[in-house]
């Protein structure tokens, strides 16, 4: 991306502040990809849940995440379409997406979800981890929901009015998600011996994927410095406090601080993402350029 085009004020009405266009876009995608991928994972439970009522609840939550992803992708597409042509070509390496750009077409929410390759996805590693069982699913959601709650709370004050509006709408949903997953943490942590063990295993296994959410990469730093993004250091403290309170109430043991996995936000993923995308993107890749 060349320096001149990078530091322009975006022409879109919501971004009347100085931030490199590409960074705003990357930041939007980080949030959007988290929502899409965790929603996808939770949606895998639909029809297979342990209790019919929870099948419905999990699907509701998956729908909320998907709705958030869509709002954010629509915003991201709007930003992308406003970029200068040469910057667009450098943004994503997918040949299918590049073919669209060569044909001078605008892109939309679906192009971002279905035509980007794995290394252009910016979700944290936590959300792509597989469902395994209800315990892993609950713990993964809980870690993420706790982060999301503080993250969207911070985004309410974003200098970007689109972010602030999305945060306001999403926060209602995320507040419910956090209540739901916290209740399941406690119920299963303090349920039977078996459920307790399964939950502890899941907490221990997923723990190393939690650090990434509150560790700022360059995109996070720039977004925060410009008044658009959230302060991840502050969220880190709030997150840990909330998580240890719930883990404690669940009579589970808090994992010791240890090495944390990183890379998702910068496009370096676990093996899981490839399979998610192979499945999710199949139709758009097999039958390109069609209306569905």
């Amino acid at each position, binding site marked *: 991306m060349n320096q001149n085009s990078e530091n322009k004020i975006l022409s879109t009405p919501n971004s009347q502040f100085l931030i490199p266009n590409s960074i705003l876009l990357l930041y939007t995608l980080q949030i959007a990809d988290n929502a899409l991928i965790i929603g996808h994972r939770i949606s895998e439970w639909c029809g297979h849940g342990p209790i019919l009522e929870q*099948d419905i609840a999990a699907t509701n939550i998956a729908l909320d995440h998907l709705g958030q992803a869509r709002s954010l992708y629509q915003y991201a597409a709007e930003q992308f379409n406003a970029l200068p042509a040469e910057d667009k070509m450098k943004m994503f390496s997918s040949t299918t997406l590049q073919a669209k750009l060569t044909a001078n077409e605008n892109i939309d929410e679906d192009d971002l979800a279905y035509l980007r390759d794995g290394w252009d996805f910016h979700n944290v590693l936590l959300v792509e981890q597989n469902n395994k069982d209800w315990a892993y699913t609950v713990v993964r959601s809980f870690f993420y929901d706790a982060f999301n709650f503080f993250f969207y709370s911070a985004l309410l004050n974003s200098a970007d009015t689109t972010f602030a509006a999305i945060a306001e709408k999403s926060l209602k949903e995320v507040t419910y998600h956090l209540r739901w997953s916290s209740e399941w943490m406690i119920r299963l942590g303090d349920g039977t011996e078996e459920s307790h063990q399964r939950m502890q295993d899941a907490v221990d296994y997923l723990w190393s994927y939690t650090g990434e959410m509150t560790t700022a990469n360059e995109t996070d730093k720039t977004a925060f410095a410009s008044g658009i993004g959230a302060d991840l250091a502050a969220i880190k403290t709030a997150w840990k406090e909330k998580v240890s309170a719930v883990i404690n109430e669940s009579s589970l043991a808090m994992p010791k601080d240890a090495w944390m996995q990183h890379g998702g936000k910068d496009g370096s993923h676990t093996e899981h993402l490839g399979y998610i995308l192979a499945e999710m993107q199949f139709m758009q890749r097999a039958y390109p350029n069609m209306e569905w």
Partner: protein
Amino acid sequence: MTVDSLQEHFDDKVKREVTIEPRDWMPDDYRKTLLRQISQHAHSEIVGMLPEGNWITRAPNLRRKAVLLAKVQDEAGHGLYLYSAAETLGSSRDEMMEQLHSGKAKYSSIFNYPSLTWADMGAIGWLVDGAAIMNQVPLCRASYGPYARAMVRVCKEESFHQRQGFEIMLTLSNGTEVQKKLAQDALNRWWWPSIMMFGPPDDNSPNTEQSMRWRIKRISNDELRQRFIDVTVEQAKILGLTPPDKDLKWNEATGHYDFGAINWDEFWNVVKGNGPCNKERLEARKKAWEEGEWVREAALAYSKKRSERNNKISAKAA
């Protein structure tokens, strides 16, 4: 009241179209028939989540993904209303699940067919939900109150599903060659199974007569089937698709479409468990149930612990 006068009172209510409610006296066979029908219907809703659930992670765009998720979720909700209605007749959900898993209880055979392409999401909505609506609208007036009320809610959502299924088919049939092929292929595979959804022909439907007397059922299988065919053939024309029946033609004299012979041998085989997906569907349901057992146990154990703790606290306070 003697049994005779109870029976008289019941018959009179049915005749006057006053709904029978859970606490009312009812003949044992009425209760059994209803329980069988409602639980079968509930099972159909949750087994029916599987063929469509099969495409949630592969839906072609975000809007379709959201609509499909919401649709499959509606089916879980329908299952819930219906299990609740069946529970008012004295069976527990665990008992009903056990009967589903053991093969004792049936569910709609249509869900033993595979969903092979995205177009099946259109065909299922259009044909399967379309046939379900034909079957279910008269059930909104069934003599048993909780069933009738559950069906009112179910039918409202089903008609939305049917429209969105048709809309998927319309998009495909207005699309490229390969999309049209997807749509026609789905119609070819779902047409006959949908027609069979109305059950065996009237002269071979053992339960129909009694069910009609009890006003659980209002319209016979063959009459509903004919209505469905008449409506659906016209809809296929709008889509520019051809139902796979060379004998299908308009009959001026009857004012209905004539149609070809139904393969009842296939129908009974699928009912008996020989359909393409019977084993898979049952296996998926059993797996969900068995793997969920520790979750249900833990939830129960936790709520017991909590109420014990609360009791202790209130005992101390007193």
